[in-house]
């Protein structure tokens, strides 16, 4: 259980507004999950009624939101100690922890049951597993226990395209798991780049993020190694009948930039010294951490671009790269 420390104030005089309850659902995370889930659903190229497709995406979004609420309930103590998260509704005292817990449980049950009844039970089972993995395995166990927390926990963020694919096709072939693998391999470089310039917060809150446990130099090296694995993996969909020419061009160009930025992080001193601007904006960084900031920002852009390209190619019915090769189907 989370230890509820003095970091969590009693409820404030400010009444909770509906926007605070919406914030419990982590709408920014939800939007990424909706995007990747919809990409999986469309790339399956299976006949599904548009309304049921929309319901599937809605269930994925609500399930992700429920995970976020459960995360905010459990992590309220450490959220209150980090400047990135101390304004969240529970640590700020606008919403009680038990309300976040109740909302998380109800929305979890609702999203899974509705997915099962309206779409199919394979997608519902995968959604239930994803919520469980994020709320219990990652939040309650991995996050406070190991420096590999976001590596293993990244599976929860990587599963939405698989759920979307299962919703449309009723099965999960290798191409669906390939999308999952791409997000999974993207996660370490993305989060460790962020952690390099927010490690003080994590250290203060007692969260064993990689820069806190292994140090910035080791983290920078691991970011580069993961980027060397991640960039080639992004090319694979072009050779498995998933992506087309445009996808291959975007993945190759972006992957090259990703590796260059990761190399620059490796050679930089990002995370080496304490940030003197304790209360500056989260994304204001020192010159030494600029390379980490650049990689963090580009990682978001790159993942968005490759999924958007896959989505656009599937919607427009463009031929896959395999079909364009001599003798292609």
């Amino acid at each position, binding site marked *: 259980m989370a230890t509820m420390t003095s970091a969590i104030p009693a409820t404030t005089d400010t009444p909770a507004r*509906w926007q605070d*309850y919406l914030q419990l659902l982590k709408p920014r995370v939800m939007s990424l999950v909706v995007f990747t889930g919809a990409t999986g659903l469309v790339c399956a190229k299976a006949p599904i009624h548009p309304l049921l497709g929309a319901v599937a995406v809605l269930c994925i979004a609500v399930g992700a939101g429920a995970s976020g609420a459960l995360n905010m309930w459990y992590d309220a103590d450490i959220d209150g100690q980090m400047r990135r998260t101390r304004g969240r509704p529970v640590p700020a005292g606008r919403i009680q922890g038990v309300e976040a817990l109740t909302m998380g449980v109800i929305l979890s049950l609702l999203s899974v049951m509705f997915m099962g*009844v*309206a779409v199919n039970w394979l997608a519902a089972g995968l959604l239930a597993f994803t919520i469980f993995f994020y709320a219990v395995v990652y939040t309650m166990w991995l996050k406070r226990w190991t420096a590999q927390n976001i590596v293993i926990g990244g599976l929860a963020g990587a599963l939405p395209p698989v759920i979307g694919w299962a919703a449309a096709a009723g099965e999960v072939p290798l191409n669906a798991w390939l999308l999952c693998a791409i997000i999974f391999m993207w996660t370490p470089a993305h989060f460790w780049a962020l952690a390099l310039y927010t490690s003080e917060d994590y250290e203060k809150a007692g969260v064993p993020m990689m820069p806190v446990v292994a140090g910035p130099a080791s983290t920078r090296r691991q970011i580069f190694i993961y980027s060397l694995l991640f960039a080639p993996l992004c090319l694979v969909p072009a050779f498995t009948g998933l992506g087309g020419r445009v996808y291959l061009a975007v993945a190759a160009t972006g992957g090259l930039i990703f590796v260059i930025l990761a190399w620059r992080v490796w050679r930089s001193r990002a995370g080496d010294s304490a940030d003197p601007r304790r209360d500056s904006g989260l994304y204001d960084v020192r010159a030494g951490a600029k390379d980490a900031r650049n990689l963090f920002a580009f990682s978001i852009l790159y993942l968005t671009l490759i999924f958007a390209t896959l989505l656009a190619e599937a919607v427009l019915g463009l031929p896959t790269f395999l079909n364009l090769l001599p003798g292609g189907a």
Partner: protein
Amino acid sequence: MSEPEAPQDTPAEATSPQPRLMSKAHRGRNIALALGLVAFAILVFLVTVVRLGANVLDRPL
């Protein structure tokens, strides 16, 4: 009836913005919840029509 009436605490509360804020926040939350429930009911109805519609028409008479 010459005794002065005991001062009531309502004037102080009435001038405070807090009850108004609370009321406004409650109203906003109730409206959001109501809209959510109505949307959910409509969605369940539409999904039922989509899932059962063809089967209902196809059943043997």
